[in-house]
């Protein structure tokens, strides 16, 4: 029997967005039954490459071969027809439609009607083959995140995928769920499916994949033929181009508590709830909040930012009790905030950058008096910060949306730090940033810590939390289930807490 050729081959793929080369001359191949790891830092071009393969982006150069045949993939319909299925990082599901309806979308009907019976039969068959069970008549909104991911995988198989692409599938899962996912993927590979597993988590890649392609700055930085027997350090070096030197975090000398939460609870509202959350952040300390996404971190950030009032419990900032829970109140008490989602809750992309930079303090004497703006002061402030933080842009009147992610994050940092906040709440501070920008931001946090600011960092990247934080609290189902000194914390211990497997420590 001849050895099977590659299932899929990408040759010399190049794709630019404006001046940014997201992919440059990238080669990649996957054989049937093979699990290929696609590794790279945020912004290395993994997602772009897969979107090219899935037909979402047209490459500027390069070709794609499927079982040796050159193909043109210009739409997701082409990709599906070629047997490529993709599980996106953000699920492509309609929450209000049922599981079955989400499966049947795009499938031709039977004599003009939706083929319900055929769909049910096919779903049952896939469930049996891979142990992926789902209730067909539930609306997707009733499924857990893990089940929604399962549905995405079933959706791909439903369409006869021979190659399955998974983009950062474990980011939304608890470690226990990750094991389930991995065993399902292994079973699929054993039946001849090719799988591309995108991740930047080295331990997962080493545990699961047969082979790895590593991207850095849009190019192939190297390949690993035996991930299981390659050290994480070696792979990390391929990813970053140099050994990662964590920022030096000196010993902390925490002072008095600058932010306290005492018995904070919120009722069911947009999914997440907080249950009796108590914590304290002291001056000169960085507290991490770890947890699988969707366990109340967002609600916690909303309460602390003053956009959501809790149903029970108390909060103090710098010793002052928060009474009204409005953003204006918590800001006045000394809270700074770096949001998870820069574009939606932080900046105003269609207005000049300067406007975004003064937004939270527009009513203060620095930028206005008697209801009139001080345009010169606003401009001067923005120019000063642009210089101080090396924000790359033509000037303060540039549309904020025109800046890159790293520069936007710097702008947000500048606007919050300029007024010496006593407490800083930060969510996913370096998501989507390149290494240089991430490092700059980490250093700024450590500076603030040295100046006596209390910082609370909500993050999913445990490695980042471990290097940055003095203490790490873990959230599970809306509770703080444990708080570890980072000296005692390990990824394994945190992971266990994140599944709710360990009680209070």
């Amino acid at each position, binding site marked *: 029997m001849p050895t099977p050729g590659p299932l899929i081959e990408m040759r010399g793929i190049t794709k630019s967005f404006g001046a940014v080369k997201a992919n440059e001359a990238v080669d990649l191949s996957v054989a049937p039954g093979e699990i290929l790891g696609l590794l790279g830092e945020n912004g290395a071009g993994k997602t772009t490459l897969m979107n090219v393969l899935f037909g979402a982006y047209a490459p500027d150069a390069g070709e794609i071969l499927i079982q040796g045949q050159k193909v043109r993939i210009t739409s997701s319909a082409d990709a599906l027809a070629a047997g490529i299925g993709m599980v996106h990082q953000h699920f492509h599901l309609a929450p209000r439609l049922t599981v079955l309806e989400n499966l049947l979308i795009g499938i031709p009907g039977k004599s003009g009607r939706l083929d319900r019976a055929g769909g049910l039969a096919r779903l049952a068959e896939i469930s049996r083959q891979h142990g992926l069970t789902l209730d067909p008549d539930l609306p997707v909104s009733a499924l857990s995140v893990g089940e929604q991911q399962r549905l995405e995988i079933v959706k791909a198989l439903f369409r006869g995928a021979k190659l399955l692409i998974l983009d950062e599938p474990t980011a939304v899962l608890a470690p226990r769920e990750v094991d389930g996912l991995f065993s399902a993927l292994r079973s699929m590979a054993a039946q001849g499916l090719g799988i591309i597993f995108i991740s930047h988590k080295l331990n997962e890649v080493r545990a699961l994949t047969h082979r790895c392609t590593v991207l850095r700055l849009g190019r192939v930085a190297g390949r690993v033929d035996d991930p299981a027997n390659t050290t994480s350090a070696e792979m990390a070096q391929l990813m970053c181009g140099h050994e990662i030197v964590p920022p030096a975090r000196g010993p902390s000398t925490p002072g008095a508590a600058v932010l306290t939460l005492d018995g904070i609870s919120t009722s069911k509202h947009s999914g997440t709830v907080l249950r009796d959350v108590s914590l304290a952040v002291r001056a000169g300390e960085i507290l991490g909040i770890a947890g699988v996404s969707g366990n109340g971190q967002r609600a916690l950030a909303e309460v602390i930012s003053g956009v959501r009032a809790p149903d029970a419990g108390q909060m103090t900032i710098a010793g002052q009790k928060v009474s009204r829970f409005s953003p204006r109140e918590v800001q006045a008490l000394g809270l700074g905030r770096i949001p998870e989602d820069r574009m939606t809750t932080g900046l105003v992309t269609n207005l000049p950058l300067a406007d975004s930079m003064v937004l*939270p303090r527009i009513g203060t004497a620095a930028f206005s008096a008697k209801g009139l703006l001080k345009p010169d002061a606003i401009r001067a402030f923005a120019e000063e910060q642009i210089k101080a933080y090396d924000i790359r842009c033509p000037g303060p009147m540039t549309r904020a949306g025109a800046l890159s992610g790293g520069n936007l994050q710097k702008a947000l940092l500048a606007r919050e730090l300029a007024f010496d906040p006593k407490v800083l709440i930060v969510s996913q501070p370096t998501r989507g940033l390149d290494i240089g920008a991430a490092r700059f931001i980490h250093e700024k946090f450590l500076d603030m810590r040295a100046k006596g600011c209390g910082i609370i960092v909500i993050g999913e990247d445990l490695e980042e939390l471990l290097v940055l934080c003095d203490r790490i609290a873990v959230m599970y189902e809306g509770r703080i289930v444990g708080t570890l000194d980072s000296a005692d914390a390990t990824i394994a211990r945190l992971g266990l807490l994140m599944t709710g497997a360990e009680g209070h420590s």
Partner: protein
Amino acid sequence: MFRLEVRTSTPAWFNLALPLLAIVATLVLCSGLIALAGAGVLESYGVMFTASLGDSYAITETLVRAAPMIFTGLAVAVAFRAKFWNIGAEGQLLAGAVASCFVGAIPMPGPLAMLLMAIAGAAAGAAVALVPATLRVKFKVDDVVSSLLLNSVIYYALMALIEGPWKDSFSGYPISPPIEDSANFPVLIEGTRLHLGVVVALIAAPLIWFLIVRTTLGFRIRVTGENPEAARYGGINVERVLISTALLSGALAGLAGVGEVGGVHFQVMSDISPGYGYSGIVVAMLARLNPFGVVPAAIFLAAVMTGAEAMSRATGVPAFLSDVIQGTALLAMLVALLFTAYRVRRVGAAR
């Protein structure tokens, strides 16, 4: 193959070029209808131009017509800046007209009457605009639909008044009694209808510009319109901004009605507004929501309306052409606005 590419900045001359481009495109497109009516295109547009801007009297007539549209245009521009979709300027104008007519009919010294008419009209317009804004803030009712429906309610209310209790017993027509002569807005140029309200409208534009660009309320309106979430996190009370915007917008639309009562008709009738409220949307969009731009945009539409009537008399082309021009101009301007956000790039076919 062509592709749309996101622009990072827009050149300043775009502010002038885009509306002009839209207007030219509109006139070209609508020339087809003139030809369909069997008239000469250039001749017809020529008549329109001479009748509306050809001599000083024509210009004053056009300005008189532009005044209410400056107000409704400002009303819409302010509202749209905050993404408060006030399509109800028509009803707010009518409410302003009714209120000012009530006040103007009370005998009192002229200047006081005019001031009180303005206050009453603005307050009535604001009160009407408050309804869709409150419904949106409190009940999440779509402001477009509620403000549109409210136009019908106000219109029927006005009709009920002038055909019922408020009917002018003297004339017997469904019109309100006239306001006191002393409350009539002074005419500024002898022999024309150019009244004080026109000047007030022209002054209102820079004032509103100042409000939007230079005040904290204007800042809050802009930020709330562009990104309500960021505004909320930034400590802005988004609901309060929406209500303030609605009050301001409604007051401006109400003033449009005040000008029509005090300066043009001196009473209220069913057709006191030939859709000035809706034209305000066209004006605001042509002006790219810039209060300064509202003035030329309103003058353009006023010229089209005045000119279309003359053209109809001269060439037999139905005067409704001006309605088609308004709709076309709005759509053309929207398409032209694409050029501010995107540029068209020629790209090679995908390999």
